[in-house]
């Protein structure tokens, strides 16, 4: 009714007036010149950074080249330092990244931050933006050209930024001369980032960022093992029929319990079970999207059946369903395809709940004959771009300093730098138990949540303080699922349609599918949805990707 509506209105007018981030005016007419600059040929010519695995700390359960993360049962007792010199030279560096939790106190009242500055030899100025608002903030930052030295892309691969190659070319530094091939050995902790992750940072024939690496497993199917065991149910149901009967056993609306939470989680489980491609399939020179396959139709039919059977939370189509809380409460028994670092959080959330038992569910093929193919993640969370610097040799000194800072931040698990980055100062931010497991204090919990992990990070390592058995569970699960892994052939390739219009088309498509699942529209509508999707974005994305794949870019 008056002034207080302004915020909401402005948000939209964002649209109206403001508008803007990337932006191709209309229907994805990307500029041809840039297509050439970012062609498969030039990108294939990039010499990727040499991978030099850090050997200084030995995991209890080793990682594999196929993508199983290394695991530690206890925190290593010996914590070597891997960055002998202070990276900075007294100046200040700025960065912007997203944050998932409450912001920490500022540098003047945060001993952890002060200690970090001391160790980095520089004053680190951070802009923290809550994850939900990150794309908005990112857009204004780009439009206003108020770039920090280090800028995190929005989460995704490729990042959902329109005309990203052109933007990178105009505003950010091509890091090839610093990182390509053996040059990266100057920054050994960055060299410890696996090659697969670097592929997503290649644009315009250059390396344009530092990837925030994530394991290829991408997500876990978390289950409430205690609820399964109470009913004597198999924790990894074999095939469609068994999954349905287990789900029915778990479900009891009277005591507020359902097998599944969000419909989109169930969707992912069926994608594996029904042998759908991981988004795209590249075979014999043709590129097929999962929406175009018979397997996808099967998944829709299956979702309908499960919805009808009442084994899915009745508010499953509400995208804001607090599924993590529901899982903690046992309202939802299977938390399918949730981000895999969530393990730590679920353990913490339920520390006071003695009956809580966290488990992982393997995915079986429809007929139960074996494990279903696992849809691998992209291997990155985001990447960190370095803005173009002024000065001699395009600001070579500054870029070097920034890379040295990022190198410090990427120090691997178990090193003294890592220990400080995650757990701060012993006695202030954390305490250690008899087994050398660090545990954050209240101060540490508030102080250490700087989003520096989104500027540079070491490869993911499985470790659950004080619960050595968890390392074996997770490592075992990854060891089973990774060998069945199926990658998305377009990972690391850029399509402007995928970064822009696809979001809208996908929303419309899935909205239509949801109508079908809920029985508001007939199944026969699906073909119409698919052809609309194809003509609005599907074929364009195919046309963007195919030349890159044919050009020899390797599926990653």
């Amino acid at each position: 009714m008056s002034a207080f509506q302004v915020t909401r209105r402005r948000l939209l007018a964002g649209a109206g007036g403001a508008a803007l981030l990337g932006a191709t005016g209309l229907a994805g007419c990307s500029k041809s010149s840039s297509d050439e600059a970012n062609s498969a040929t030039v990108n294939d010519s990039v010499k990727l950074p040499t991978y030099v695995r850090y050997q200084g700390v030995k995991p209890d359960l080793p990682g594999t080249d196929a993508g199983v993360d290394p695991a530690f049962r206890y925190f290593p007792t010996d914590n070597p330092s891997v960055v002998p010199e202070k990276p900075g030279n007294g100046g200040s560096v700025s960065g912007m990244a997203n944050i998932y939790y409450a912001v920490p106190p500022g540098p003047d009242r945060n001993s952890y931050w002060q200690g970090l500055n001391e160790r980095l030899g520089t004053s680190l100025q951070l802009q923290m933006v809550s994850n939900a608002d990150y794309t908005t903030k990112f857009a204004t930052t780009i439009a206003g050209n108020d770039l920090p030295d280090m800028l995190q892309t929005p989460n995704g691969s490729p990042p959902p930024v329109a005309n990203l190659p052109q933007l990178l070319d105009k505003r950010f530094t091509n890091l090839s001369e610093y990182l390509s091939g053996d040059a990266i050995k100057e920054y050994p902790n960055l060299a410890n980032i696996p090659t697969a992750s670097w592929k997503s940072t290649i644009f315009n024939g250059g390396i344009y960022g530092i990837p925030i690496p994530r394991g290829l497993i991408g997500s876990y199917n978390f289950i409430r093992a205690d609820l399964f065991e109470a009913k004597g149910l198999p924790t990894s149901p074999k095939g469609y029929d068994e999954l349905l009967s287990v789900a029915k056993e778990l479900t009891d609306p009277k005591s507020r319990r359902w097998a599944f939470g969000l419909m989109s989680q169930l969707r992912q489980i069926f994608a594996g079970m029904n042998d759908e491609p991981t988004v795209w399939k590249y075979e014999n020179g043709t590129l097929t999207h999962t929406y175009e396959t018979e397997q996808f139709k099967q998944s829709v039919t299956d979702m309908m059946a499960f919805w009808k059977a009442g084994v899915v939370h009745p508010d499953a189509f509400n995208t804001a369903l607090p599924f993590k809380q529901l899982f903690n409460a046992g309202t939802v028994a299977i938390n399918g395809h949730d981000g895999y670092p969530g393990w730590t959080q679920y353990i913490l959330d339920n520390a006071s709940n003695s009956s809580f038992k966290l488990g992982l569910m393997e995915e079986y093929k429809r007929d139960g004959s074996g494990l279903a193919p696992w849809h691998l993640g992209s291997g990155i969370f985001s990447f960190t771009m370095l803005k173009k610097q002024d000065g001699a040799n395009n600001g070579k000194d500054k870029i070097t300093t920034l890379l040295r800072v990022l190198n410090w931040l990427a120090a691997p698990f178990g090193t003294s730098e890592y220990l400080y980055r995650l757990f701060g100062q012993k006695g202030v931010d954390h305490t250690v138990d008899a087994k050398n497991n660090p545990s954050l204090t209240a101060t540490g919990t508030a102080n250490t949540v700087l989003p520096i992990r989104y500027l540079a990070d070491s490869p993911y390592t499985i470790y659950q303080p004080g619960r050595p058995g968890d390392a074996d569970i997770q490592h075992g699960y990854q060891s089973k699922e990774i060998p069945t892994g199926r990658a998305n052939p377009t990972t690391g390739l850029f399509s402007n349609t995928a970064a822009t219009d696809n979001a809208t088309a996908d929303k419309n498509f899935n909205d239509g599918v949801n109508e079908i699942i809920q029985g508001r529209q007939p199944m026969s509508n699906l073909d119409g949805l698919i052809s609309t999707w194809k003509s609005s974005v599907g074929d364009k994305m195919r046309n963007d990707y195919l030349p890159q794949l044919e050009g020899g870019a390797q599926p990653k």
Partner: protein
Amino acid sequence: MTTTQPSLDEATIGDSTTSRSRTSKRPVWMEKPNPFVQLVKFLALLISVALVIIPFWSIIATSIADQKTINDSGGGMVMWPKGVTLSAYASVLSGGVVTRAMIISILITVVGTLLSLVTTAGLAYWLSRPRAAGAKPMLLLVLGAVLFTPGIIPSYLVVRQLGLIDSWWSLILPVMVNAFNVIVMRAFFQDLPQELFESAALDGASSLTTLTRIVLPLSKAVLAVIGLFYAVSYWNAFFNALLYIQSSDKWPMALVLRTFVVNQTTIGGDQIGATEVLPPQLSLQMAILVIAIVPILVVYPFIQRHFAKGVLIGAVKG
């Protein structure tokens, strides 16, 4: 002017005493209430109040509930906390982030509301005077500002051009004058008895004197209301802070609150490697919600006094 002034004061003072004496009892001329009508009114209000109180009760109950209580209620809001704990409040208030943001918000709200009232009243006064030079085109501009909403990025660029990025002024100046409030205040000013202006003009009072000695004292109700509108919008605004304030050290309460509230449901979201047992996420959210509402609750009754009951009766007679 000198002639009007004393009678005005008299009227105001005289009235404030009468209105105070009327606070709890029916005026003499008012008839005894009809019991049936009273019952209907009572029920209508009771239901409305219950519809508000119950969810708010639930917010408070959830803010003091422990994880077990929340789990028992299916992972949602709690109606009756069995395990009561203040750990959510302790956690929210630790580290000093929330207290600092609270102080910043109070500062911005106070300074901003004062500036807003001064500029809005000034503009409304200009536009309310019949045939004032330039008032007509300006009025259309003000009206246009109600209709057009500037976009995020163009606004950002203006703020940046003025060098206000990362300054608290960026949270005040861009929203200092709200066109809606100008128009409402102008309407109230226009309804002041014209005789007052005439006699002021005859006394040779300047427009400034007329504003400060006649218009404003007679407009306490609307000033209180518009002031409240401004105060609340300053208090609740997070979006400009999100865009214009770079250091989280300078964040106002509303933005801190937002980070607590919006970040709960991201699927596949990254988790921190914390090892301290935190209070339940839902309790934290509700606790900070309660903390953010309290200051307004404290201030409101003082503002409310100015518009809850006729304050200026009699003044009209000049």
